């Protein structure tokens, strides 16, 4: 595209600041001893240490996968630290005990852990580096029997639930990064919604990487018991640093009979500078099991950050008549790379899945959609609809689509639609002729393109996502 399109200035990543707190950080390196130390620091029961060690030993036998359409220099797993916690982060009785510096950090990020969030009716669990620094609204939720706390707390308070469900959707042996996570994960969020309870508010986890040279390995486990429903949102940011940092999270969702879980992500990890220096490697395994009859799992993601995103939120449609959904917007600009998509594994009868993927590529970014729709022999009457749209901004970026479809019976219907479009100079000129700036034009065109996905985000986050998109693409077009 013409030079006019490259003329605008990139806005700085506004979350790139570092918080100065004293941290308790394990020395760099990874060994069986590291795993034991993490487990000991967290005062974990024996079953969990055993599980971690099995994961670690398994991980040693695995190879880092390289089938995705991304390139990066080899990661030295011995050069990172696998545990970092703000020193003040002991078990907290209430939010009043949280280090004020941390509270200020979250205020700067637009996440209030104090009064404001109560008003907007969102419960927040804030994860700073490796540990949870505070969970809001706990007592209100407890009245309904809903458990919403840090993973570490769940291990102490509800070990039976953790033991029953941990690894039941993503076993430690699942893949290289899942095994690494299982071995060294330090915290994360945990949620259990009991039978028949509809969680009355949005639950939200906010992840923040602060320390340098620290990998973040959190683990989220959400269980909706029979007839329960919950809507969950995660947000993420990290300081601007010159080195790459590894983020290898695992999220497991379990929906029992007639239960539904809606999981939304607005991912805005630091993406590196315009030349691709620094940024987060976001290698994440997210999977939900629609285990029960007529259960439903819905993923919505807006991926704007990270140097590399490697992520496939998936649904195992085990229960008869269960539903899986995946709505995704993935944006790459500058040197960002994303290889993202979903897997829908149809096992039960009359299961239904929908995939709506919107990929936006700008600058020299490279965006791949990779999706698998697998219908097993017994999944009679299964249906899938996939729509996969790509938008290109400029002519140095790339968009790729890798759909894998396997259908094991002849009563199922699988549809795949794909399109690629380009934001043209004519579209921008048209908007300018109506008085809009180039940036305004782009954000308008892009949010129109992403509308079907944004509609699935909770209201206030939809606005946030839309703004984020505008910021990410600033400077990509003029």
């Amino acid at each position, binding site marked *: 595209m013409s030079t006019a399109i490259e003329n605008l200035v990139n806005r700085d990543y506004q979350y790139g600041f570092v918080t100065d707190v004293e941290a308790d950080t394990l020395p760099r390196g990874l060994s069986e001893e590291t795993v034991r130390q993490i487990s000991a620091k967290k005062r974990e029961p024996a079953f969990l240490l055993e599980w971690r060690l099995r994961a670690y030993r398994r991980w040693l036998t695995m190879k880092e996968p390289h089938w995705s359409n991304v390139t990066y220099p080899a990661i030295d797993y011995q050069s990172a630290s696998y545990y970092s916690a703000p020193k003040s982060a002991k078990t907290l009785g209430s939010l009043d005990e949280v280090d004020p510096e941390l509270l200020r950090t979250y205020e700067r990020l637009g996440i209030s852990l104090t009064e404001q969030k109560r008003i907007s009716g969102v419960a927040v669990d804030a994860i700073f580096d490796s540990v949870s620094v505070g969970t809001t609204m706990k007592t209100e939720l407890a009245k309904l029997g809903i458990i919403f706390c840090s993973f570490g707390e769940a291990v102490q308070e509800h070990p039976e639930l953790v033991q029953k469900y941990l690894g039941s959707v993503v076993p430690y042996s699942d893949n290289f990064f899942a095994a690494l996570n299982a071995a060294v994960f330090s915290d994360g969020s945990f949620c259990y919604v009991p039978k028949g309870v509809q969680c009355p508010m949005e639950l939200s986890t906010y992840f923040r990487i602060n320390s340098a040279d620290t990998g973040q390995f959190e683990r989220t486990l959400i269980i909706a018991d029979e007839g329960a429903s919950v809507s969950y949102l995660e947000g993420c940011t990290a300081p601007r640093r010159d080195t790459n940092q590894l983020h290898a999270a695992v999220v497991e969702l379990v929906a029992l009979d007639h239960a539904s879980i809606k999981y939304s992500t607005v991912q805005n990890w630091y993406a590196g500078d315009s030349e691709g220096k620094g940024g987060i490697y976001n290698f994440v395994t997210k999977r939900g099991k629609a285990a029960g009859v007529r259960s439903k799992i819905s993923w919505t993601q807006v991926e704007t950050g990270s140097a590399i995103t490697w992520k496939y939120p998936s649904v195992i449609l085990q229960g008869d008549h269960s539903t899986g959904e995946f709505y995704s917007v993935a944006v790459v600009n500058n040197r960002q790379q994303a290889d993202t998509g979903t897997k829908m594994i149809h096992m039960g009868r009359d299961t239904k899945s929908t995939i709506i993927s919107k990929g936006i590529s700008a600058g020299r970014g490279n965006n791949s959609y990779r999706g698998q729709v697998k219908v097993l022999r017994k999944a009679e009457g299964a249906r899938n609809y996939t729509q996969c749209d790509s938008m290109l901004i400029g002519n140095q970026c790339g968009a790729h689509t890798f759909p894998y479809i396997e259908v094991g019976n002849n009563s199922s219907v699988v549809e795949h639609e794909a399109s690629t479009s380009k934001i043209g100079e004519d579209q921008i*000129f048209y908007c300018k002729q109506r008085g809009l700036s180039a940036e305004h034009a782009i954000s308008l065109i892009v949010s129109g393109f992403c509308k079907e996905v944004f509609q699935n985000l909770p209201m206030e986050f939809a606005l946030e996502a839309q703004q984020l998109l505008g910021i990410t693409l600033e400077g990509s077009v003029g």
Partner: protein
Amino acid sequence: MLEIKDLHAAIGDREILKGISLSVATGEVHAIMGPNGSGKSTLAQVLAGHPGYEVTRGSATYDGEDLLALPPEERAQKGLFLAFQYPVEIPGVTNAYFLRAAFNEIRKSRGQDEIDPMDFRDLVEERLRLVDMDPDMLSRAVNAGFSGGEKKRNEILQMAVLGPRLAILDETDSGLDIDALRVVAHGVNSLRRPDNATIVVTHYQRLLNYIVPDQVHVLAAGRIVRSGGKDLALELEAKGYDWLVDAAPASAPAGVAGAGV
């Protein structure tokens, strides 16, 4: 209001406008006619600031200001509106949203506050009545899936809402059936005021039966070869363009293409 002098414009190495001079005063309607490829649409695009064209010589002032020095969005904010020959589709963005965004940008540029959605709806409904158009247009995505005729009508709707000082209609009549043509012409006529002006770019005389011009200019090979009153359009309808085009020497002196009559 608009003063164009010896305007030359090119795409790459190809010169398309070869010395246009034209003067448009408030309250006037000017028609620019001419055969295909004569530079009519180029003139419209250059005035609006399309980045694909390079002005190589000449000037254009708008209310005394150097129009060509302004970026396209500022020209729009100052009241210049182009009804596109090929309106662009913006899927997923409703007309109402798009129009309010544009309307507010124009207000902001004038130091006025943004209008809230409710007040804006009242304003739009009033303008819709003025141009006799269906409110359903507002909830549809900008031009997406519109027929050719709907797109043209949508341009007039936008024009009605934004209320430009200088409107340039680029072949708004092409591809319209007679009913749509009437709606479009009715819209343009209803928006006519003593303090604004309209330039109608058209290939056919037909539209000028409904929008009566004060002056008609005939463009051929990048120059104005004849200017006259509304009767000139009728003469063209009867005799075609050839007699004028053939009469114009390949390098006519600028005096032949004088502005005004």
